[in-house]
């Protein structure tokens, strides 16, 4: 049983500002149902668009997720936009007295929902920051700061850096408590440790990586066999562990067509699984030129 403070229980049992706003000026949406928690924040501003006159929220999640969202609304209601811009997860946790370490990610979700709503207010986004579901389109840079580090929960390097810097975190376990990264299969823990190292050294720029060796040219048959092997040995066992599966449908030139099966088929992260994980694995194990497509039908 979690050791929740009275204030956490109060905001869980009697959450403030629950609901929707019919015509909001801004909406911030983070998390998703697959990952186990989500928060949708609605803001209504005055005519000058300077002050938050009303705020409502909806939460899918545990007691501390509901309490964190309720706390956030109390922190920003009636305040000016410029006043709330600096609100972070620490403010939410402090407002509630204390959150168990393992639940700090709930306060981070509150902070991210506020940031998403403010970005929506500035017209920079649609307010949706569904974790692990960003569509970076053609500008997506797998080596950049927005690369996914934790595929189980779709956490980017940027999000990890933010919680590390914002909360002075020093261990991989802390990072997991604050943003869930590393809390699934645990395969990214080394990566998180490397990010912690980098942040602690406060390098202004990430070190330039050595040029990758030019890949050897494969024959078509070699390529097909390598793709099949990579799918059977590396990709399917990972998906099957979560009740999903994948089937190779076709290989045409560098285009690999696959169908997601089982729980993968209905997963809202299916697209990201395909692009960031299946494709990345094939790039690593077979050839960087491959493009993975979902089978139609």
């Amino acid at each position, binding site marked *: 049983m979690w050791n929740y403070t009275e204030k956490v229980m109060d905001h869980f049992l009697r959450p403030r500002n629950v609901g929707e706003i019919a015509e909001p000026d801004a909406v911030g949406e983070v998390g998703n149902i697959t990952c*186990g928690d989500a928060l949708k924040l609605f803001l209504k501003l005055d005519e000058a668009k300077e002050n938050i006159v009303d705020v409502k929220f909806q939460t899918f999640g545990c007691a501390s997720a509901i309490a964190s969202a309720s706390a956030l609304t109390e922190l920003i209601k009636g305040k000016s936009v410029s006043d709330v811009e600096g609100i972070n997860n620490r403010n939410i946790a402090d407002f509630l007295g204390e959150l168990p370490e393992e639940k700090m990610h709930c306060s981070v979700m509150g902070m991210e929902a506020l940031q998403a709503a403010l970005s929506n207010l500035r017209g920079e986004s649609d307010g949706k920051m569904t974790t692990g579901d960003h569509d970076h389109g053609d500008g997506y840079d797998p080596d950049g700061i927005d690369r996914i580090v934790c595929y189980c929960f779709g956490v980017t390097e940027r999000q990890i850096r933010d919680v590390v810097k914002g909360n002075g975190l020093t261990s991989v376990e802390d990072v997991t408590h604050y943003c869930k990264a590393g809390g699934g299969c645990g395969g990214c823990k080394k990566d998180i440790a490397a990010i912690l190292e980098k942040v602690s050294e406060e390098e202004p720029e990430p070190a330039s990586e050595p040029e990758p060796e030019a890949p050897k040219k494969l024959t078509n048959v070699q390529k097909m066999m390598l793709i099949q092997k990579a799918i059977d040995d590396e990709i399917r066992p990972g998906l099957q562990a979560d009740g999903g599966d994948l089937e190779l449908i076709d290989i045409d030139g560098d285009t690999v067509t696959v169908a997601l099966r089982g729980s993968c088929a209905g997963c809202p992260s299916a697209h990201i699984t395909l692009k960031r994980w299946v494709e990345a694995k094939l790039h690593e194990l077979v050839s960087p030129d491959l493009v993975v497509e979902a089978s139609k039908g």
Partner: protein
Amino acid sequence: MRKEVVYVDNNATTRVAPEVLEAMLPFLTDFYGNPSSIHTFGGQVREHVQTAREQLASLLGASPEEVIFTSCGTESDNAAILSALENDVRRRKVITSRVEHPAVLSLCKVLQQRGYHVEFVPVNNRGQLCLDALCKMLDDETAIVSVMWANNETGNIYPVLEIADIAHQHGALFHTDAVQAVGKVPINLAKSNIDFLSLSGHKLHAPKGIGGLYVRKGVRFNQFLIGGHQEYGLRAGTENVPGIVALGTAAGLAEQHMTDERTRVAAMRDHLEHGLLKSCPNARVNGSPRSRLPNTTNVSFEYIEGESILLLMNEFNIAASSGSACTSGSLEPSHVLRAMGLPYTALHGSIRFSLSRYNTMDEVELILEKLPPIITRLREISPYGRMAEGDA
């Protein structure tokens, strides 16, 4: 004063039966002797240990000398599997299921790290074991197959008698973690090919800290705890006499109440399950109702999260459990429900109700009165709540 709790979490642990407490108390007070002692004061205790062994053997349909007392179910699981591997060093493969208790699953993962070959049998979306897959995995390299008798989360019962036969066809041993089954379903080991069976006292109204392991006559078994000659030289360490007497008494009571468990308790479980499905839209039963423990139901309330449900039930002193990530301290929901490929809408909102003979129909009615408004309320808070209303 302690408020009356409606306790429907009996697969986690059970209350100590009053008869059990009464039977064990003298061994914590007047009869504190060591059963290994030569003097009468200690020696007289030995008889009670033997009586308890007979009581437990009777519940299992085994001979008393096939039953040894351990500290818990986990110890029994570890002892059986490790012994099988030590006794046939040429066989380096273990087969188990994806839905085992951590007492088996975590051990198997450690064995993998130690270089053993471990295969995990998948289950279908009702939690039933894929026997075909198991048969394909079995070969002459397999030292032991370990499959639980009944699952702690869904209550699903597995065809362990059949699996034991299949394992023996390949010369492999068979172990079953029967911690949830013992006392709830009839067991007759004499008529089976099961080699090892693990059980735990606190799941059948004995206290925590006492377990049992059945080792079929003629099966080689190595000490897990190495030391003295206790328990026929198979399990060293001075006997937990009060615990052993308690487990023996609890086994006797379980045998007496077996019919009650399968009729009255099952009827309460069914009433609870039907009532919840009727009053809560978008609720679904996880597991296979056709072959299930009589006391267990696992229900997912879609679009909401389990910890919130549990804590709101806790406000009414109703104690159940959930397979949601948030309750376990891990970030992933139950490995059992994930192995079953539950839809993501249902994965985080599962609640397990596990009854015992101490529950009453009034308590079931109380849950049926208090829980549906909790579900409605959480769906009102949830951004996905409208989906639940939409297709209800």
